[in-house]
């Protein structure tokens, strides 16, 4: 059984008047509580796959099954219900929210839209969500622009888990964070995965981050899958030229006594 199964997905754009495939015949599956990493150089098609999976854009060809149902032909109430189970966290939480909105407002929206909790119950649910992602419930009344980048990313995660998703798409979700904060956010994601059995489509250009949290990896090159497999094995012994280049480009910190 898989949470997400993507088959022969293709998305074409135009560049200089000529069509090209930003995503070219890509297939993969993600199981429950599994982290599948998508790696690749910039422009290799990672974000386009994220947008296709979230149905923010439509593919030119291919099929997406989410929780064993044909996601691309779904519409109306069925689509809305399914969308609640498929959430996202992007690199820049400020861009994702109205910066003047309060944290409570940001977390209230999914509870309301998806009918998760009656109005009277929502403040309690919001407090519980904040606590779940390691934030003080007192933060609820603060504006998004007043809190730190790490806190914002926790709010983004709280919003994503509010609707009890089975899959979260994370597109460079920790790339803009300071290293100390980054470690905490990654640990939070792992903890949520174990407790709530959430699967992650984890997009990053950083193999160090991927190796820390992912079970399997797919490496993209110009829209195509160049190689895939167990994350640590692929990173230790990359076979494709792009995989080798990504590994070679990682700055190495050689310490006598780690």
């Amino acid at each position: 059984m898989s949470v997400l199964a993507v088959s022969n997905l293709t998305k074409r754009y135009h560049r200089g008047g000529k069509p090209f495939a930003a995503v070219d015949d890509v297939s993969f599956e993600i199981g429950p509580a599994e982290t599948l990493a998508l790696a690749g150089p910039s422009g290799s098609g990672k974000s386009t796959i994220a947008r296709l999976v979230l149905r923010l854009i439509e593919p030119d060809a291919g099929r997406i099954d989410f929780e064993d149902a044909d996601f691309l032909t779904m519409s109306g109430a069925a689509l809305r219900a399914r969308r609640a189970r498929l959430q996202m966290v992007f690199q820049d939480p400020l861009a994702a929210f109205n910066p003047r909105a309060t944290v409570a407002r940001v977390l209230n929206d999914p509870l309301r839209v998806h009918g998760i909790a009656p109005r009277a119950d929502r403040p309690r649910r919001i407090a519980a969500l904040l606590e779940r992602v390691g934030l003080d419930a007192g933060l609820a009344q603060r504006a998004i622009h007043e809190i730190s980048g790490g806190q914002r990313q926790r709010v983004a995660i709280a919003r994503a888990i509010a609707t009890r998703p089975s899959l979260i798409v994370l597109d460079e979700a920790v790339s803009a964070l300071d290293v100390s904060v980054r470690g905490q956010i990654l640990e939070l994601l792992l903890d949520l995965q174990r407790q709530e059995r959430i699967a992650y489509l984890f997009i990053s250009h950083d193999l160090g981050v991927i190796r820390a949290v992912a079970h399997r990896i797919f490496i993209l090159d110009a829209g195509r899958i160049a190689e895939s497999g167990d994350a640590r094995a692929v990173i230790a012994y990359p076979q494709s030229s792009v995989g080798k280049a990504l590994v070679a480009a990682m700055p190495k910190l050689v310490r006598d006594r780690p």
Partner: protein
Amino acid sequence: MTALLSIRDLSVAYRRDGVEVPALKGVSLDVLEGERLAIIGESGSGKSTLALALAGLLAMGTEIGGMIEWSASQSQTPRSFAPLSGLPAISPARGEIGSFADGSSPATLEISKSSDDGSISPLAGEMPGRAEGGVPERRPSAIGNTQAPLLGSDIGFVFQDPSSSLDPVMPIGKQIAEVAHTHLGPGWKGAYAKAKTLLERVRLPNPDATIHAYPHQLSGGQKQRVAIAAAIAAGPKLLIADEATSALDTIVQAEIVALIRRLVSEDGMTLIFISHDIALAASLADRIAVLRHGELIELGETSQIVNAPQQAYTRALLDAHLGLNAEPLLDRQDTSA
């Protein structure tokens, strides 16, 4: 090694909504001639503020104290200057400016009203000062004919976002030629020849065509190569790269770091490499300076910082690095569960 720059007790405070925001607190540091010095720290630690202060690029109204002594090797006597800011007036409390210089030191330039005569260096057009990383409108300091190092001919500056230093409507060859023309004065023909040589040196494909291209026709990594070419066009002694590879993917980042390493060594430049990434800094630098909350908390040879850090904070930065030989968090979680 002799010091190219001596920074003494440098303090910088921004003014935001009438409130003073301290960004650097009493930083003292010698930048040695010919070295590759990395400045690392988390966001907000003051890295960019230090870089902008050295280049005289801090915005109007910024409070600056302390001293920077610049000793370009072609002049026998070191040139000193109080960090310029083009601010309307320095507060009397900044009386310590210049006081660092002992009796034998050359006269120190004090910031005065005269540095606010509005004279903008010829480079103004190339540094549109577009807001980047939260830095508001910058203005090159009123450099005029003071003894401060000149942006372009003494200091080359590379920003994180190459678009912030490139003019979107000017062919890139012209942008590079202008720097050479302004500072070296070879005439336009010579300046264009120099631009073409520089495009070759930064390994841009097909320099004959690229010289006529506009920035939007290039990839992020190629734009950064152009920005580097422009930064070194007038043969500066010091190259400052502020998070110059942070917006690039790892493969392009490695290429740009290799390029910077090669150019710095070929031209005998001194490098200040600013990064939030301790591993990247260690891969390039001879020495590493660690900033935290505006203070310089540790400075040492790269191997000492990496293997025997004196500060717990430096060790925490090292431990937080997720390298390809680190224990995966996945395992730590599993065992702790």
